């Protein structure tokens, strides 16, 4: 299934697409695969985080998950194998979220090709404003990976226009000026950011950061998709099941708040 089809299917059902995020190797290699099986029935697309030593866009929950995964031996090779295993479970689009330095360490061409072969659909690069390295973005696209970049409430019209010029797949709208982490309520400005981005691109727009349950999902449902990360990772940390959280969020997506 392509990214376009995944968003289109959700739209046809009158709802925003649901995009769960999980940190590869957390709470363990097997625990991660179990969590994937648990979220897949709810997911339209899936985001898999490559654990990194210095995740400066992430809040405490994903920082802790990354540390645990690394301590338990998760590696780039290990994430490649996990992506391959997840690909065997589903044909839904799989996006790898990774900071830039692991890409540079493996060599961009090798890194991109191997993840493409493993079955990744695209990449989310939180510390790469695309105009910093257009050649790298082109390389990923030539290898067949979609390239997703983040926009934030602080993004100016000029930044939005620049960044969407490099985007394929979808555009990731950060709901808050802040790092990842579940929140009780999203700032109202999320409702402005989505149309501001749409004015510049026909690509689907997914809202992420802070979506934790029904209320925040209803706020985020103005977008074409909603990413849920820290709330799931926190539940895994506590040993709670993921299904109820995703059902609650689905409920919120159906009760979309008026724009």
């Amino acid at each position, binding site marked *: 299934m392509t990214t376009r089809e995944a968003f289109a299917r959700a739209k046809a059902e009158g709802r925003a697409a649901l995009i769960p995020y999980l940190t590869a190797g957390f709470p363990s290699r097997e625990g991660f695969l179990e969590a994937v099986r648990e979220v897949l029935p709810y997911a339209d697309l899936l985001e898999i985080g490559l654990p990194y030593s210095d995740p*400066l866009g992430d809040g405490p929950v994903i920082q802790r998950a990354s540390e645990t995964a690394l301590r338990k031996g998760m590696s780039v090779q290990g994430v490649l194998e996990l992506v391959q295993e997840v690909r065997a479970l589903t044909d839904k689009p799989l996006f790898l979220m990774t900071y830039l330095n692991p890409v540079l360490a493996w060599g961009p061409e090798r890194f991109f090709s191997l993840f493409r072969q493993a079955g990744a659909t695209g990449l989310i690069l939180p510390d790469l*404003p695309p105009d910093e390295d257009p050649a790298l973005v082109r390389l990923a696209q030539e290898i067949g990976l979609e390239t997703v970049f983040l926009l934030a409430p602080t*993004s100016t019209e000029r930044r939005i226009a620049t960044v969407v010029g490099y985007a394929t797949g979808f555009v990731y709208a950060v709901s808050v000026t802040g790092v990842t982490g579940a929140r009780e309520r999203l700032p109202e400005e999320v409702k402005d950011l989505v149309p501001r981005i749409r004015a510049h691109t026909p690509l689907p727009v997914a809202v992420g950061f802070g979506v934790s349950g029904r209320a925040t999902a209803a706020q985020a449902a103005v977008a074409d998709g909603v990413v849920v990360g820290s709330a799931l990772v926190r539940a895994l940390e506590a040993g709670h099941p993921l299904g109820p959280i995703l059902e609650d969020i689905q409920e919120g997506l159906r009760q979309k708040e008026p724009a």
Partner: protein
Amino acid sequence: MLRLPDFPLPDPRGRFGPYGGRYVPETLIPALEEVEAAYQEAKRDPAFLEELAHYLKTFAGRPTPLFHARRLSEYWGGARVYLKREDLLHTGAHKINNTLGQALLARRMGKRRVIAETGAGQHGVSVATVAALFGMECVVYMGEEDVRRQALNVFRMKLLGAEVRPVAAGSRTLKDATNEAIRDWITHVRTTFYILGSVVGPHPYPMMVRDFQSVIGEEVKSQSLELFGRYPDALIAAVGGGSNAIGLFAPFAYLPAGQRPRLIGVEAAGEGLSTGRHAASIGAGKRGVLHGSYMYLLYDHDGQITPAHSVSAGLDYPGVGPEHSYFADQGIAEYVSVTDEEALEGFKLLARLEGIIPALESAHAIAHAAKVVPEMDKDQIVVINLSGRGDKDVTEAMRLLGGEL
């Protein structure tokens, strides 16, 4: 009249050759553009420069002397050795040159809250100091491990009215404190100014910190012309992130090769480069991205950042500024390293021969000078940047050297 010099680099995209740039979450890009625009404007505003000059002179204690170290010169038996006395500045190190500049810029931008990262606490103390001076709210991030090791500096910062937030993530040291400061900035970007302490981080920080620190080299230029009628033959400085070294080097680095003194940056070899326990990013690192900048960096085969090690907490950082990375590639400056043990020898040597206890950072520069000065001619002149004083290191030195004295 103080002048902030116009250097040929970085280019308009914040690059020194391939190094530098702005590898940060998109949330910060508009803020970095704002800081850059405000800085470019301030740099040309006589009122800003006058105010900065006023505080550098009356608060920090500039200009600092260029001191002829006669006994040290005699002991080494080579070139004449001069020390640039940044250790005499208020708060005990060169850090104040930069924090005064950035705090004045923050005030000009209407930001009442400043944040900073600190390792040993020298930059943190310096930021807490200027925040008190200008009546700003101040939060300093410091790794839990450093909070424990540097209790005195934590108390100093609190005394100055700053809030110190211990960071429990990762290796609990400077790199993690920097991550946390960046996360704070991402979250409070509209009200907060981030006072970064070294020539690292996203553009415009490596440029701005370099410009504020270049007062060191500018003074050395005019002091040398006055004292010797010419520039020195060699300049030596310790390099962690690289701010004191860039401050000394930059005014000379872009001179034509024939007129340029030999520039020597001294990294921390810790327990030895072969042990893996060191902080020599240029000597033993690879090119990579951390804290927003492409530079020489210490990381493993997967790109995971590896913790740095040095007896000197100020050099204990796994990366090195993009301009140093560029100087290294171009051969504009040479980069070497000395071990903890050699640095401690330098520490003792300067204390005994000149009556100056240097910071352990600066002791690295002394330790390398011990290798090159004896090989030089007697009519040659070497300037060593004495970037800070050793008061903060006395407890650690007592632990390491106690039995030997």
